[in-house]
């Protein structure tokens, strides 16, 4: 669905990507994790065609994004971190923007709006930032665009809305769709994403599915000093130490995204070697 080959991009003299390769497949929700300024938004904007690769090639849904052809624009939806909605009421906004998306489904939009409890009366700009974001997410999902790019979608959402967000996104994915969510709030994507991509200094440091992560890595609490010392990553918890270990005996554990993220940043080579 999206193939990035040898992507080079830099802002003036500050290089962001130098030969990045990445493939995204339909039917998956990818979590793009990374520190501030590591190029998460830049990657999303390259895929969306807002920025142009200085070297390399991006193929998204069979199109070259930088051409920004209407047929391509109608097949993806980008939710930026910072956005501005027009000074219209919600129904009026939908009335004028929905026809641009041939697969837009009004029923779905109403369903998502209800899930997010977005007030239909009053102007969009009278809504809070979080409510505006929920309106934008509802529109994005109702367009049924096969590719959904979300940049920090949970920023500005309250705790209840974040759980609604996870529920709605989990219900919206199907075999035809691919969702790429960029965030630095790792915990917001817990139980939602099925693939983790960690970006560091313009490179893909880690790119694995959650099932493979659960298969190869073991997340647990430990009280054994020897085990703690040998762990790929450990941190003190309320009781004992939370450790990340190679999963040599096929034990079941629930991957902790925040821990995985920290572990990959600290010990990326060793962790990647376990997936070779």
């Amino acid at each position, binding site marked *: 669905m999206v193939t990035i080959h040898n992507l080079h991009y830099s802002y003036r003299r500050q290089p962001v990507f130098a030969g990045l390769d990445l493939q995204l497949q339909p039917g998956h929700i990818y979590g793009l994790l990374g520190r501030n300024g590591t190029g998460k938004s830049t990657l999303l904007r390259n895929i969306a065609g*807002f920025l142009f690769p200085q070297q390399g090639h991006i193929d998204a*849904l*069979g199109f070259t994004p930088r051409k920004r052809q*209407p047929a*391509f624009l109608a097949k993806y939806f980008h939710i*930026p971190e910072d*956005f501005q909605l027009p*000074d219209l009421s919600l129904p009026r906004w939908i009335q*004028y923007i929905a026809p641009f998306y041939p697969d837009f489904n009004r029923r779905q939009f109403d369903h998502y709006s209800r899930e997010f409890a977005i007030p239909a009366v009053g102007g969009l700009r009278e809504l809070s930032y979080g409510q505006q974001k929920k309106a934008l997410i509802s529109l994005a999902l109702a367009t049924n665009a096969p590719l959904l790019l979300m940049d920090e979608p949970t920023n500005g959402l309250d705790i209840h809305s974040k759980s609604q967000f996870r529920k709605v996104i989990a219900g919206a994915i199907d075999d035809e769709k691919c969702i790429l969510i960029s965030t630095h709030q790792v915990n917001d994507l817990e139980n939602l994403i099925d693939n983790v991509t960690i970006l560091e200094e313009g490179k893909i440091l880690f790119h694995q599915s959650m099932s493979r992560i659960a298969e190869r890595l073991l997340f647990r609490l430990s009280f054994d000093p020897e085990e703690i010392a040998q762990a790929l990553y450990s941190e003190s918890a309320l009781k004992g130490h939370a450790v990340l270990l190679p999963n040599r005996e096929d034990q079941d554990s629930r991957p902790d995204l925040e821990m995985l993220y920290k572990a990959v940043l600290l010990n990326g080579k060793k962790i990647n070697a376990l997936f070779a």
Partner: protein
Amino acid sequence: MTTAPTNQLFLFSRWRLLVAKHWVEHRRPYLLSLLAIGGLYAAWFAFTIAIDAYAPMAANMQFMAYITGLYAVGCLFSSMFFADLSTKKDALPWLSLPASHFEKLLCVILYGVVLFFIAFNVVFYCVDIIMVQWSNNITFHHPRFFPGTTVRVQPVTVYNIFTAVGAPVPEKNYHIFTSLYFAIQAAFLLGSVYFTRYSFVKTAIAVLLFILGFAFLQQGVIYPLLPKGWNNEFLDWARMSYDGGPPDSEVRLPGSLEKAIVALGQFGLPLFFWFVTWLRLKEKEV
């Protein structure tokens, strides 16, 4: 590689959606701006009627008010169209809206050039006709005479911008100012895409530098090449008679060539600037 199913450059149905969306999102500021323009003209004309006892609403004043307003508002309006592209939160939804750059540019030209020009003229003449009537009413009911004479101040007529009557160079049969307006407005439209910040000021400086360059070419390069006593005007070189009559000698380009050059300025330059704007839009990165 997937082939696009429909025309990716221009599709009327898509463009119509774009035009409707633009109208519903911007109609309020547009209508308020037109009201403000009308109000400013009414205030200015009322002021001139109040202070000028001998030539209230003179044709020249109407002409200057029209041209000044058209250039100032038209260029400012143009430079605001793509100003949104300088901020990510406005630019990203605009660029990602499923329509081609060409359709988006055509939509801007429709509102910023065609409809603006029509609306501006409607507002100007709505105010101008009323104020001319009011001014004539005053001079009819309260006759005025030029100081020390029995010559009565005459009623004025509504100035017609679409004829050469009253134009600065009437014998040329065109309004050089209105001819150039569309080219300059198109330059401001290009400037709003080209410059990410302070586009109006930067474009104004660029246009000013071009005008200064042109003036230097005319007066600093061409004029010294002419024989003594000859005047240099754009597309017209003449040795003037001292009694103010027709020139003793005159050199002009053949009529068709002169018309072609004027048409180039009137239609060619805007098209050129719009074309460059389209290219810049396609290459715009946010």
